């Protein structure tokens, strides 16, 4: 990202002149208080929103110029676990997870197996056929994460992954993310939960009121 800013009308500055470079296969933490601009930054990274100014490139390609088929292909390679979950509350847990694989035309048997594996890893095996509207917030959060990683994306963006979870489940979520990271995926986690980045060896970027306050850590993999 080079000098990326995002403003919302009339004059709300969500991000101002952010310049960072995240390596392929890196695990990267974005921290800051509520309203610091963490979620906005993730939205810009997955091209859910366009920056007001500046340049964002992924694998050397400026993403705000991508359209149609190319943009769809890029989004298939980015898994996003949204803070507001974006679950289809009238569909089952399995259907919600499968959706990210269906858009890239994976075979039904591969989808079924992957869904079962992920549910097991996240301790949700008994919720396979449960309508997601009937799940607790913590369970919904895990389904969102499972959907984000299901298609084995090369980049995973996670917004507050442990917000509604107890310590044991947080551990499981982080284990899954670490597994994806070891598998070569770039992981970007926006959080204000210091328990998950306190002892990390990865880089941690702090945002304050939309501005880059500092980057600590940095043992690149």
């Amino acid at each position, binding site marked *: 990202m080079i000098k990326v800013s995002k403003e919302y009308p009339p004059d709300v500055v969500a991000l101002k002149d952010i310049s960072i470079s995240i390596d392929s296969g890196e695990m990267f933490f974005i921290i800051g208080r509520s309203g610091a601009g963490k979620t906005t930054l993730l939205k810009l990274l997955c091209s859910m929103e366009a920056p007001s100014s500046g340049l964002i490139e992924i694998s050397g390609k400026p993403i705000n110029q991508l359209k149609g088929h190319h943009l769809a292909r890029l989004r298939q390679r980015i898994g996003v676990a949204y803070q507001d979950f974006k679950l289809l509350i009238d569909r089952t847990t399995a259907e919600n997870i499968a959706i*990210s694989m269906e858009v890239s035309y*994976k075979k039904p048997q591969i989808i079924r197996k992957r869904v079962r594996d992920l549910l097991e890893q996240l301790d949700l095996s008994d919720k396979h056929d449960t309508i997601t509207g009937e799940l607790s917030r913590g369970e919904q959060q895990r389904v969102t994460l499972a959907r984000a990683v299901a298609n084995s994306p090369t980049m995973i963006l996670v917004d507050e992954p442990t917000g509604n979870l107890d310590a044991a489940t947080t551990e499981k979520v982080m284990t899954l993310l670490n597994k994806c990271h070891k598998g070569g995926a770039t992981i970007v986690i926006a959080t204000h939960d210091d328990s998950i980045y306190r002892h990390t060896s990865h880089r941690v970027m702090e945002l304050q009121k939309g501005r880059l306050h500092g980057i600590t850590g940095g043992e690149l993999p």
Partner: protein
Amino acid sequence: MSFWLTVFRQVGRNLRQTWGSQLMTLLTVSLSVLIFAFFYLIYANMLTLGDKLGDDLSLIVYLEEEPGPELQQQLRNKILTFDEVEEIRFISRAEAYERFAKQLGQNQDVLNDMPKDFLPPSIEVIPMKNLRSLNQVKLFSTYLSRLPGTLKVQYGQDWVERFYYFTKLLSIIVLLSGTLLILTTIFMVAYTIRLTIHGRQAELELLKLVGATNNYIRTPFLLEGLLQGAIGSFLGIFSLYMLFQWIKLRFSGPSFLNLFEFSFFAPEVSFTIITVSILLCTLGSYSTMQKFLRI
């Protein structure tokens, strides 16, 4: 999973979720096709009947005196000056009497006391097949009435005029019902698809974010429009066919319908109506997507 399998699954899911509005649209499309096809069927049959009657159309010019061979030639030339004709036949008083007697059949004895020359001589003019429109026939009739020695020209004016105006009225009804068909198919399908899009806004948003291509999102909606058109128009045509068969069966026997061959559409016509309906419905679906489905 293949593209089409995914698309069909999506279509099936949509139809299940919005079956109420889908059914209403299907019925509207069927009814519109039925109304249009009904009037078009009558119109097409009337045109066939008109063609048939046109084949038998002849103008009879009654003359004051029986023309001699020289006058006959002059009259023939005069008639041909207006337009080419199929045939010109001169009927003498005696021939007219014989024909009349033949027409009376067993009752011809009523003519016993009548002189054999009481009927006027006449010229039977059979116009060319291309002289179809009422105005042309009228003009020809006026022209013939101005020929020297003409008493009167007859061609069943009242009947021809009534038939002509009836066919004209039918053509207007066909046009109106055709317009109705176009409007209902396009707008009803567009409205249903619009409802579906609104109802699935969250899902469409998510599909976009997880990397669904435009084709992945749009094709199911296009297919829905196409299915509405195909099933709706097929039902419409099929209902009309059943109605046609019922009328044929119900009114078989010596009635108006037996005066001429009342036939159903040729397969190509039915196929064309179904194809056009499919195109219209798909167009309705497409226009809604362009308007409301921004990807």
